[in-house]
């Protein structure tokens, strides 16, 4: 990257003969377009976030965060939604993290190139591409009905776990890739077996990276709506979840219900803004933590 910047500077500073000045201008114009494209992305994020902060912060107070909804959801707070979303996303990590990390260990440490590996990779890529609403249908047909879990925290966590599995595998593999081979060679050279090497050397070295992936996974699971619509979430439940088989309220579903299904959509607008703000603070916060943590890790590795 650095060389490319130097090359660029060299081009800019070199004196262009009149004949070729047009080419230099063309480059400047095209690059301007590229810069604009990048700025548009930033603007999109900025507009969405500032808008929700500006409209939502007035709704947020202690009552909003610590009380259940009241008066058929036109007043009160969103505590059950916050708790429900936390339970669902942590539950999904309990499912996806062990399976995902173990898959990544197989793919990176054990598997040899060949048809089997191609097939597993194809499976992961396609799983990553399954639409979220199809995960919802699958969760409904398999977990809720076939496994008789009913609409429950458990069914929702498992569905979200299946959805976040490719995310976890991807980031765990990246973390394993970042562990230098010299670590493995040193351990094997001392007479350790492959498994001892993985367990005592590779996993501890890759742990921070794996943790980053888990944080991203929690963020992803917390924001998903369609997979929990038929598997775990309900409009309203007066009690907080006390068992795995309870139905729960969830932040994303709460936003959707208040914004579309209620009879008093306008009256609950401030609650919708408030809930949306809490959700993006949670999700973007988790992602920011992961991004900053990862940047620090990379610097340390270098």
């Amino acid at each position, binding site marked *: 990257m650095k060389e490319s910047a130097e090359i660029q500077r060299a081009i800019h500073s070199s004196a262009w003969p009149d004949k070729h000045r047009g080419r230099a201008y063309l480059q400047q114009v095209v690059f301007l377009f590229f810069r604009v494209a990048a700025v548009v992305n930033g603007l999109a994020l900025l507009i969405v976030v500032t808008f929700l902060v500006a409209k939502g912060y007035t709704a947020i107070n202690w009552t909003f965060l610590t009380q259940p909804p009241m008066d058929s959801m036109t007043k009160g707070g969103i505590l059950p939604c916050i708790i429900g979303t936390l339970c669902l996303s942590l539950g999904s990590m309990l499912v996806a993290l062990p399976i995902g990390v173990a898959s990544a260990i197989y793919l990176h440490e054990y598997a040899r190139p060949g048809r089997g590996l191609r097939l597993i990779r194809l499976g992961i890529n396609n799983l990553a591409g399954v*639409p979220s609403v199809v995960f919802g249908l699958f969760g409904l047909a398999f977990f809720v009905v076939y496994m008789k879990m009913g609409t429950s925290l458990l069914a929702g966590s498992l569905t979200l776990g299946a959805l976040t599995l490719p995310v976890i595998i991807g980031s765990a593999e990246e973390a394993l890739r970042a562990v230098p081979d010299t670590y493995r060679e040193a351990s094997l050279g001392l007479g350790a077996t492959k498994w001892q090497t993985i367990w005592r050397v590779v996993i501890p070295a890759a742990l921070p990276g794996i943790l980053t992936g888990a944080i991203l996974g929690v963020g992803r699971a917390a924001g998903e709506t369609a997979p929990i619509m038929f598997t775990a979430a309900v409009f309203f439940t007066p009690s907080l979840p006390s068992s795995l088989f309870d139905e729960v309220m969830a932040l994303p579903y709460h936003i959707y219900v208040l*914004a579309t299904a209620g009879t008093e959509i306008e009256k609950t607008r401030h609650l919708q803004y408030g809930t949306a703000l809490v959700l993006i603070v949670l999700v973007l916060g988790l992602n920011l933590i992961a991004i900053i943590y990862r940047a620090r890790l990379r610097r340390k590795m270098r």
Partner: protein
Amino acid sequence: MTKGDPKAENRRKQEQGIRMLFFLIATASIITLSLIVLFLFMEGLPIFKKVSVKAFLLGKLWYPTSDPPDFGIFALIMASVAVTAVASLISIPLGVMTAVYLAEVASWRLREVVKPVVELLAALPSVVIGFFGMVVVAPLLQDLLNVATGLNLFNAALMLAFMSVPTICSISEDAIFGVPAELKEASLALGATHWETIWRVVIPASISGISTAVILGMSRAIGETMVVLMVAGGAAMVPASLFDPVRPMPASIAAEMAEAPFRGDHYYALFATGIVLFAFTFLFNLVADYVSNKYRQVGAATL
């Protein structure tokens, strides 16, 4: 580890067992994917006892709750195709241009700022983007363009575009970044400008990665649910204009599943719609996989 040493033999067996265990866990993704297919078909196929496949896919009427009901999802398919196509018109140039900016134009310092921005854009929950489209973009469109409703094809496509830009951008950027420096240096040494090098050398060399990115971006757009559920307008008809309200497949499934009687025809029809949707994304993903393997740039030799 000499042969016959029982301790070493034991350890070898244990190692093999562990290896096997990890292999079995690694097949979890394929097993999940197979279960998804299996259960979609199990719950979706019964509808074809009532309507033929052709009538289901090409039927223009979707009135699942009338008596007698009509189960034709042609309008839903067209709606999905239309929002995805319009979203791609926005997201492909924007995503690829941002990728080129990140990989080739931006200074190292700016890159460290813009990349997280793109990642955060990807992390925005779809329900929040849908909500934003409903309460901000829809009234704005209604006033500006004087259309009947701001909840329409264009609004949905615009919101979807911003959801697929990060996908397109990050995969394209990896591909562009992976172009060997010798290729660029050779072009620059021949007197080409940086832009000419990007256009004639860097982009052709990374076109397979960029294509993969575009396909996966479109796959993300066609499968996205909450945005089209909240801002597409919900009318089950084949769109005639950019500002018609539409009802893409995911929106139909998400909106109606709660009311559909368990294992009734409507329920089966929604699962069958799920099969069609899944088939679209599965196809997109297979093509993406094929393109990225078949046309992979290996060094400079195949350029």
